[in-house]
């Protein structure tokens, strides 16, 4: 039955429809969405009934809103204001670190879409980040002796830095479709290795092994962000501009992924993740769903790669390696699989904890200097802690930091009761 015919007949058959609805609870089949929401509004629960019950939802749409409770809305606003103020209130290094967090969060969201939502494993995400970085560098960078550079505007470069890795992901997806589980994981490692070789060899793009190349010029809509502007009392240095750019992209990506996850496509992803054959039986087109997940995830990784390259300023073909992939996996795993805020918390954790350790190093007695002496030096401690944390999170809290947060929240929500 098409929607228009329902609407046309709904006025006449209303009593019938209501009785069907009472009997089966399947009203969504019969009533158009707008009418349902109108019903929900008509049956609004009084203020007193809502008090202290933030999760009282009277319609499906309300429950699946992006911010489904008022607290989330308020806190998000506060966080957004803090994030906007942060670069002006802190120094360069902190700004750079926070911008790195945002970039890792974008890449993590991309991987989360593929691994967390659609259940397809990829250890090759660093390759797509590299692809995005080089797309950005070639299109937006200055030409050198051997390297290409087109010096385009970021308004063109950034979308293309997402589109080209996305297209490559689209090409790879049919191959990846054929294999499942761990075979897919190793296939993506293969992709990573071949990509690294490609980057090393294609010197007109990458500048070659050990040499590297410059990155895209920070020119957005004809405005040179690198120059340093004065807007009222605020000074916009290049760092701050890149920070704000990453922040805006992250917010857009986060809302985009959240919206996708609660749409028909997102539910198809989840169905494929939970049991792909069952999903296929229910009419979810496997090939299309997996391909879409791959392409979107690669596009986000490419975008993150382009932004990351602009942050670090010079890129070499060796840095898009297995360890970067592991970092991105850690963002997803430590943050929380299949959660949006989890990816952002995870990125903050993965980027900031090593720096925190570096700052705390003088206070830890068992740490030696950069050379030998002491039990471990600070870099070794960082790395070993990273590995141990991955193990601990997977064994003790599979939902990651997001799960920890949910537990804390529930504790205070239920207080003084245990549950």
């Amino acid at each position: 039955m098409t929607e228009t015919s329902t609407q046309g007949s709904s006025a006449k058959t209303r009593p019938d429809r209501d009785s069907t609805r009472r009997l089966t609870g399947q009203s969504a089949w019969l009533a158009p969405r707008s009418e349902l929401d109108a019903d929900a509004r008509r049956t609004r629960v009084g203020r007193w009934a809502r008090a202290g019950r933030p999760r009282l939802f009277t319609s499906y749409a309300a429950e699946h809103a992006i911010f489904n409770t008022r607290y989330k809305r308020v806190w998000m606003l506060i966080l957004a204001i803090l994030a906007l103020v942060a670069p002006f209130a802190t120094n360069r290094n902190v700004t750079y670190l926070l911008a790195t967090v945002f970039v890792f969060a974008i890449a993590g969201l991309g991987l989360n879409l593929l691994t967390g939502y659609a259940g397809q494993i990829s250890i090759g995400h660093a390759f797509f980040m590299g692809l995005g970085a080089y797309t950005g560098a070639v299109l937006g960078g200055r030409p050198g002796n051997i390297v290409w550079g087109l010096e385009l505007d970021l308004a063109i470069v950034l979308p293309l830095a997402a589109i080209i890795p996305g297209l490559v992901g689209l090409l790879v997806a049919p191959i990846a479709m054929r294999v499942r589980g761990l075979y897919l994981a190793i296939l993506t490692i293969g992709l990573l290795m071949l990509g690294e070789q490609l980057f090393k060899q294609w010197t007109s793009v990458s500048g070659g092994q050990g040499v590297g190349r410059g990155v895209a010029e920070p020119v957005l809509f004809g405005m040179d962000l690198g120059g340093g502007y004065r807007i009222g009392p605020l000074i916009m240095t290049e760092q701050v501009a890149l920070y704000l750019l990453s922040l805006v992209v992250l917010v857009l990506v986060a809302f985009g992924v959240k919206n996708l996850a609660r749409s028909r496509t997102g539910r198809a992803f989840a169905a494929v993740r939970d049991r792909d054959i069952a999903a296929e039986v229910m009419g979810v087109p496997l090939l299309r769903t997996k391909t879409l997940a791959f392409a979107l995830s690669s596009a986000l990784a490419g975008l993150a790669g382009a932004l990351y390259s602009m942050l670090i300023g010079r890129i070499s073909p060796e840095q898009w390696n297995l360890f970067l992939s592991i970092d991105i996996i850690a963002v997803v795993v430590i943050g929380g699989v299949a959660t949006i805020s989890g990816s952002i918390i995870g990125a903050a954790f993965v980027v900031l904890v090593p720096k925190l350790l570096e700052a705390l190093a003088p206070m830890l007695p068992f740490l030696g200097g950069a050379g030998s002496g002491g039990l471990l030096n600070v870099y070794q401690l960082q790395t070993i802690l990273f590995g141990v944390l991955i193990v601990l999170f997977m064994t003790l809290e599979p939902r990651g930091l997001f799960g920890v947060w949910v537990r804390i929240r529930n504790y205070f929500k239920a207080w003084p009761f245990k549950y």
Partner: protein
Amino acid sequence: MTTFLQALISGLGIGSVYAIIAVSFVVIFRATGVLNFAQPALFILGSFTTSALAVDAGVPFFVAVPLAMVIIGLVAAGVERVAIRPMIGRPVFSTAIVTIGIFIALLIVAFRLFDSRPRTVGDPWQLNSICLGGDASAGGCAGGVLVYENTIARIVVAAVVLGLLVWWLGRSRLGLAMRATSLDQEIALAQGVNVGRIFSIAWAIGGGLAALGGVLLAANGGVVQATDALFSLVVLPAIIIGGLDSLKGGIIGGLVVGLVAALTSAYQPIYAPWLGPNFENVAPYVVMILVLLVRPYGIFGTKEVQRL
């Protein structure tokens, strides 16, 4: 022709080391369903332990190697008990990520415990070579095939160890119990198999084999460093080509990867220099992708039966 023979022999030599490492992955995967990404770290710990025993402590090489295998086997079993046992019943990918974490941690341990200087494993073969059918008088091997002793040693050791292992796993009660466990852990438990012990034993065997592979790979007259652990990642295509759960597949996959790498390094600089240096390190991945296109579960891998 001599180039080809030379590449063939050295490929078989390195391939038999890859076969050992591949089998170490497969033994663990078959019994526990875990793809152990920590294997490279065990592999490098194996060669470091041998080096510490044979070079620093003066234990004879042929005693040091089995000793190192036992030690690393125990380490692997301990790792399994601490970090992998709690993951039973979780998705395979989660467990794989845990092993990545272990890999990172163990690599630093290896680095910290041993890597204060370049190490050798103290093998008796070093760079000794035999010249077959050529003129060895001028120092080289003009017109003949140069065969390093370590190549022969690798092939012999791999053949003996893998032959014994396959025979033992095929005939013994323990091998049967392992196969039962890999089929279904709960049913194996119900039939009286001590599944926990099978897990420990499988990891111990896997660790021991990885250590042996590490020693053999390091026994080429050169030095070994912690970063060499990444070399054993080239075994990943080997186990995928053969099929993750097949011992036979692991052995054949290892040999194929060794041959592909050796032939590529012999011919690619001549015929396809645009592919760049070190292409032999990625050539196995190309072969792997081609094999996966035709057979998604490797050549000998069991096709996963899907039920609703």
